[in-house]
């Protein structure tokens, strides 16, 4: 039987990639372990090794093809004794264009592919951001590039800004966020640390206490739990404890929340945790424009800022304004879409559920106003309350755990400050109250989903 070689996934969140190079030609024989191709994603370039022995009968996806979906058929391998020429004929001719079809060749494999819990964002008309001048040229940019650009711009602007963390320099970032920074700024300002979160968080805070402006990258915020004492007891409280004499102008940033299929210890949202602490600012952007504008603001901010990113969003494209110095205000929510019937408040990856839900709800004639909170602390409650005064109904959406969540905080404060305007109880959509399971089906259940958001909105609308 010929063996199908499928486009491999290089990380839990990869959906597609570029087949940059074939190292074997049709007719070449390969042994298990031979490098047969190079695949590039926005995150990494990886070599693909043959798993089986045989002869390359057909290269289905030519070198240089972009956006090849994970599990698409990319080549066919003939086993010993099989007729290479015969196999090569007619195989995969139609698959070249319809990449994902390859996955159907072997359904078992397709099912085993990493289930990205959140598909790409649907097209929703994003309301004009009042912070972006009308007529500004917009450039399609990934969140990853936006974050990198923000750091590079601020490092060019201010010699006191530097970035430190695990794999930020020579590896170019575990998630490629710091790509190219070492080359531009050198190893004095782009510093690889040992795997020692508690220690380097403290080193960063100490440096910040002298007035330097460190950007400390955590490979993920899960690992920052090892360092949380320095974030809270040192970074957040020094200004107060010193009677205003010294503080810590520092940014702690990195991916936060669930990625895909990495289970309990690597899947947790810390928005509510850090938002509990006076002395911290907590930012959690969704779009690339917000990621850029808010990271630049965070780096300039004289206070410690917790900047929560999301691995699944890193590769998503958004329009980013082409401006010399695009800085957004921390502490200000953005009305993602105006509407009149009901308000949804979300932030970060929660926005992916909300944006899809409002498309569904539109079909049922429900006009949602969607607020992207962007900053969790200080919270822009006035924007939420203004919206609730108009709609009378509120649903919050986030991936974090339900108890003491950002949503329950919003619900409490809206209830206290805008009770008379509410026409229905506030509903809070959150992740389930369980450690993140590994199994694909259970993981999907543990996260919020679009259906839950749609249902919650209908419930508060009594529909």
């Amino acid at each position, binding site marked *: 039987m010929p063996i199908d070689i499928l486009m491999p996934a290089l990380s839990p969140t990869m959906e597609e990639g570029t087949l940059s190079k074939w190292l074997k030609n049709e007719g070449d024989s390969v042994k298990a372990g031979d490098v047969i191709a190079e695949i590039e994603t926005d995150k990494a370039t990886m070599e693909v090794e043959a798993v089986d022995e045989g002869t390359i009968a057909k290269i289905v996806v030519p070198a240089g093809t972009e956006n090849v979906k994970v599990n698409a058929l990319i080549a066919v391998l003939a086993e010993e004794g099989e007729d290479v020429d015969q196999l090569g004929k007619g195989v995969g001719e139609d698959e070249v264009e319809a990449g994902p079809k390859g996955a159907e060749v072997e359904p078992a494999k397709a099912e085993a592919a990493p289930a990205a819990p959140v598909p790409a964002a649907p097209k929703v008309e994003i309301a004009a951001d009042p912070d972006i001048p009308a007529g500004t040229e917009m450039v399609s940019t990934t969140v990853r590039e936006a974050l990198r650009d923000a750091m590079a711009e601020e490092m060019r602007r201010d010699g006191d800004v530097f970035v430190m963390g695990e794999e930020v320099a020579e590896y170019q970032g575990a998630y490629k966020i710091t790509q190219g920074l070492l080359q531009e700024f050198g190893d004095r300002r782009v510093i690889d640390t040992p795997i020692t979160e508690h*220690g380097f968080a403290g080193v960063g805070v100490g440096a910040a206490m*002298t007035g330097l402006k460190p950007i400390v990258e955590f490979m993920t915020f899960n690992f920052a739990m090892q360092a949380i004492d320095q974030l809270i007891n040192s970074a957040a409280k020094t200004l107060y*404890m*010193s009677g205003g004499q010294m503080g810590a102008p520092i940014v702690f940033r990195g991916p936060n929340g669930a990625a895909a299929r990495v289970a309990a210890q690597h899947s947790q949202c810390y928005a509510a945790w850090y938002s509990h602490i006076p002395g911290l600012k907590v930012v959690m952007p969704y779009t690339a424009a917000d990621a850029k504008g808010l990271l630049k603001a965070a780096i300039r901010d004289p206070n410690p800022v917790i900047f929560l990113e999301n691995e699944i969003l890193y590769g998503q494209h958004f329009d980013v304004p082409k401006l010399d110095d695009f800085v957004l205000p921390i502490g200000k929510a953005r009305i993602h879409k105006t509407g009149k019937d009901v308000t949804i408040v979300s932030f970060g990856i929660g926005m992916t559920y909300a944006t899809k839900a409002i498309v569904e709800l539109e079909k049922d004639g429900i006009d949602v106003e969607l607020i992207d909170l962007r900053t969790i602390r200080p919270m822009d409650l006035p924007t939420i309350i203004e919206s609730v005064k108009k709609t009378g109904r509120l649903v919050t959406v986030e991936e974090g755990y339900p108890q003491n969540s950002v949503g329950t905080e919003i619900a409490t404060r809206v209830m206290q400050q805008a009770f008379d305007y509410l026409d229905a109880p506030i509903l809070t959509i959150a992740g389930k109250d369980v450690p993140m399971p590994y199994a694909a089906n259970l993981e999907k259940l543990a996260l919020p989903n679009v259906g839950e958001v749609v249902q919650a909105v209908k419930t508060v609308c009594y529909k």
Partner: protein
Amino acid sequence: MAPRKTATVSSRKSAARPVKKDFNGGTVVDFSKEQDLNAYREMLLIRRFEEKAGQLYGMGFIGGFCHLYIGQEAVVVGMQMALKDGDQVITGYRDHGHMLACGMSARGVMAELTGRQGGLSKGKGGSMHMFSKEKNFYGGHGIVGGQVSLGTGLAFANRYRGNDNVSLAYFGDGAANQGQVYESFNMAALWKLPVIYIIENNRYAMGTSVSRSSAQTDFSQRGASFNIPGYQVDGMDVRAVKAAADEAVEHCRSGKGPIILEMLTYRYRGHSMSDPAKYRSKDEVQKMRSEHDPIEQVRARLLEKKWASEDELKQIDKDVRDVVADSADFAQSDPEPDVSELYTDILI
């Protein structure tokens, strides 16, 4: 359980034990008259200040935790004598002595202890959390070991800026068992950061003696895994401390990276004001006070060398008492912070 008998300083290695031959730390170099008089005055100020703080605590003027430095004065005074302007100091919660030695005002420290608006942190920090940007004193940290990473960060900043300042990170034998200390050692050695780690080994981590808490009780060797040189120093002899400090500062300033000084010292009082110190015998404390007191050693020397008469020393004592009494008066009469201060200094 009967208190264990612990070896005295004199029976331990009282001189610095060099690991590398190029270090002569602890080779006691005689002080000049001015140095001895200065050390005497500085140590006495800390002693009298702490005694007064203890009194005010007993009277209810000082609340919360209050950790006195009595007995350990030679460590911070000797170290400070080796520094230049721009060098930085950071320590843990037993910090009053460090602040006075850094030149922070007795009034400011005492008023912070009583939680008054004239305190160094406007009354918002208390005994364990005081800072002075002006004097390059970076706290005053209440989380055991936290200051070690932060102090390493101060050194990182010096290297980043390309200046020749050195940072001093003080911590105790208790903090020496915290994980982040070793994370910091690793980075400091890796990046050759100009930081002196001063382990004030006063033999007790709160109530747990070194032998009951530490597998390796020679703290000067705690950097061995990171190739950080370390030396034991008689922390009761201000001259030995100063000599070791001079060499350590030179080591750091010349770009050789971090260094560890283990100061063999002793606290006379309990861990904090609420500690009756039942884990050690009164004899042990008394023996240390009578045979190794850091202030008495200088006093005896001053008299022996006829650098000061009894009357002159009494005058110094009186001057010091006046400073302390003034700080105590201020700390009791200064108003509490304005209620509006509750919500200031949280964010800039």
